[in-house]
């Protein structure tokens, strides 16, 4: 979730940079996104990624708060991909390849 949020941070920052808006903090980024109608779609998805990530980092039991199964279906597909899609439209670039999540193999020694 934290990785998804920071992917979101880079996506949003890229869109803002294209529009000539330089941000140096989360506060600045949030303020610009919230205060402009043109970023409403970005904000809607970005806000939710941020809220999830902030809580998931510090909550006592992460799996109870967000089940592993819902990370792909909800966090990635419901928030990150739409955010990415909005940014692609804004940036006029080609669609990048999709991320695929797999359950980690417990016996994998390469961890």
């Amino acid at each position, binding site marked *: 979730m934290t990785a998804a949020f920071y992917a979101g941070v880079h996506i949003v920052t890229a869109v803002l940079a294209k529009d000539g808006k330089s941000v140096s903090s989360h*506060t600045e980024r*949030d*303020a610009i996104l*919230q*205060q402009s109608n043109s970023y*409403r779609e970005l*904000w*809607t*998805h970005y*806000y*939710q990624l941020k*809220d*999830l990530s*902030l*809580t998931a980092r*510090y*909550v*006592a*039991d992460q799996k*109870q*708060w*967000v*089940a592993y199964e*819902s990370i792909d279906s*909800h966090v990635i597909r*419901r928030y990150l991909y739409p955010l990415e899609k909005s940014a692609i439209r804004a940036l006029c670039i080609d669609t990048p390849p999709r991320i695929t999540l797999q359950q980690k193999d417990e016996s994998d020694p390469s961890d």
Partner: protein
Amino acid sequence: MSEGATAPDTGPRAVLQISWRLDREQQFVIELPQEDRIVQTGEQIIKACDLQITGVLWSKEFRAMLGRIGEFCASNKEHISACYTSLRSNKICVFFCPRSESFDFELSDALAEFSIEISERYSLVGRVHLRQVPLWDVESFVPSDSLQFTGWDSESKS
């Protein structure tokens, strides 16, 4: 203030005007209720008034925002179990605890929309951060001096 505008001891008073342009450096003697006197410049008086007016407006808008948050809780009570607010040095945090044990994605959609409404309608209040946190770990996120919203849920025991 016009030259020699000394106030009479009794009787009706004319409206006295303090001008930023003309009286900024002018000193004024202010009589307090206990017959104490303080000397302030026009600039100090104007800034104090401005601050007081801003404070009153902020307070009015803050109360209106709290009312709107209460309404939001009531209209989403099937999703919200508890709601708290906390004043921080640079922002106001509002914590929504879902009825579910896990993150409520539907509530999150509603909060995303609501965050835009709050920032547009109550801009004078400053930065407001809406968060969804679990009721079962509320102590980890909600400061002990937070205020809890009550009365919006008829089943609420608070």
